């Protein structure tokens, strides 16, 4: 599971073995009529533009701004997230995990790469990689430190290993100093990593 940068040289003129193999595969599938090329483009475009962590940031910002929505999100995350139009593949059964002064939540998939696509998009390479999958459950505090997150020593850490089709979204703590901010402004404080648990929300001074 090494970094793709180690062996991808697609900036040059020659093609890598994988580039050639996947091109050959796609040619065969098109020739046999198994795939619609427009569908392939649409799948890629959906996850490069429409479906990504900006969706989850809206959910979090709304939960920060609206206590009733937050209560619905924590009680039935699938329905509350669907209110904003985010449903479907790899987010069919959602659970929201609230970070508090006492508890920090961290999400992993040790067995593969399970991740809540409708709200976060496709997972980053590190989330799918051996270093994270092996150690998030074994030594979460050290993993958090590698992300620059140092928690008070007494703070409880709950790690959630996504072993079924339940998908987890962390509701990060709302940072101080944004009490007067509107929902759309608040969403700028919400990072992807803060919704996985490997980061915290930004402070207002970081974005203004």
């Amino acid at each position, binding site marked *: *599971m090494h*970094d*793709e*940068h180690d*062996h991808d040289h*697609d900036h040059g003129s020659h093609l890598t073995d*994988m*580039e050639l*193999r*996947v091109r*050959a*595969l796609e040619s*065969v599938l098109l020739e*046999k*009529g*198994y*795939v*619609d090329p427009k*569908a392939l483009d*649409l*799948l*890629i475009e*959906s*996850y*490069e533009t429409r*479906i990504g962590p900006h969706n989850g940031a809206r959910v979090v910002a709304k939960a920060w701004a609206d206590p009733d929505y937050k209560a619905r999100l924590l009680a039935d995350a699938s329905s509350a997230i669907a209110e904003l139009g985010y*449903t*479907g*593949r790899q987010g*069919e*059964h959602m*659970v929201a995990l609230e970070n508090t002064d006492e508890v920090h939540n961290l999400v992993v998939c*040790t*067995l*593969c*790469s399970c991740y809540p696509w409708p709200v976060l998009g496709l997972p980053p*390479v*590190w989330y799918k*990689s051996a*270093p994270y*999958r092996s150690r998030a*459950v*074994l*030594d*979460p*505090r050290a993993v958090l430190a*590698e*992300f620059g997150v140092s928690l008070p020593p007494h703070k*409880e*850490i*709950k*790690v*959630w*290993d996504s*072993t*079924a*089709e*339940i998908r987890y979204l962390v509701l990060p703590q709302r940072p101080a100093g944004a009490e007067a901010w509107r929902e759309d402004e608040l969403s700028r404080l919400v990072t992807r*990593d803060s919704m996985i648990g*490997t980061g915290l929300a930004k402070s207002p001074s970081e974005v203004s």
Partner: protein
Amino acid sequence: MNGAQDMGGMMGFGPVAAEPDEPVFHADWERRAFALTLAMAVPGGWNIDQSRAARESLNPAQYLAKSYYEIWIAGLEKLMAERGLVTPEEIESGKALQPAKAGANVLEAARVESALARGRPTERPPVAPQRLKVGDRVLARNMHPLGHTRLPRYVRGHLGAITHVHGAHVLPDSHATGGGENPQWLYTVRFEAQELWGEAADPSASVSVDAWESYLEPV
């Protein structure tokens, strides 16, 4: 299967290397690999558990040496070959060498958005009574099936407690082999870090997994 995918608790892979401003894909072939894998599940007819089982069946040395989308492509090639959709020789040559399988469905562009928005929910009406409830102490079974399972090795033989009940869900172990959905009650089970990793582990940490009823024994 006790394969290389079951990584929880392994050591020696080094620190987590996060990439600033990471793109969704790192090469054009990754884009195509992603889209082809999603699209081919329609003519292929396989389910997510069969996809995972195909990826996990890689020899552990190969699994660890491949990048994420290289594993996806290896899994896809295996699933297609098993069903007679595309042969390895066709991929080598980049040309169809035998006729397409008759009657295969195609994911059409007009159906992409609705298919993504619908997803594939796994909750089913229960077919058996719920045997465990929140607060129950349970033992994760010491089991080592040859086929696909979603009970990670690092919890097997350890004691935990039920914290959530999620209804009945499709059982991956049978779904992956074409043995049917066999829905079972699904629970979240919390294990204290010291129960899993010994007394040197963080006393304020826990790990929760989602586990089907047959993975658990009441204690």
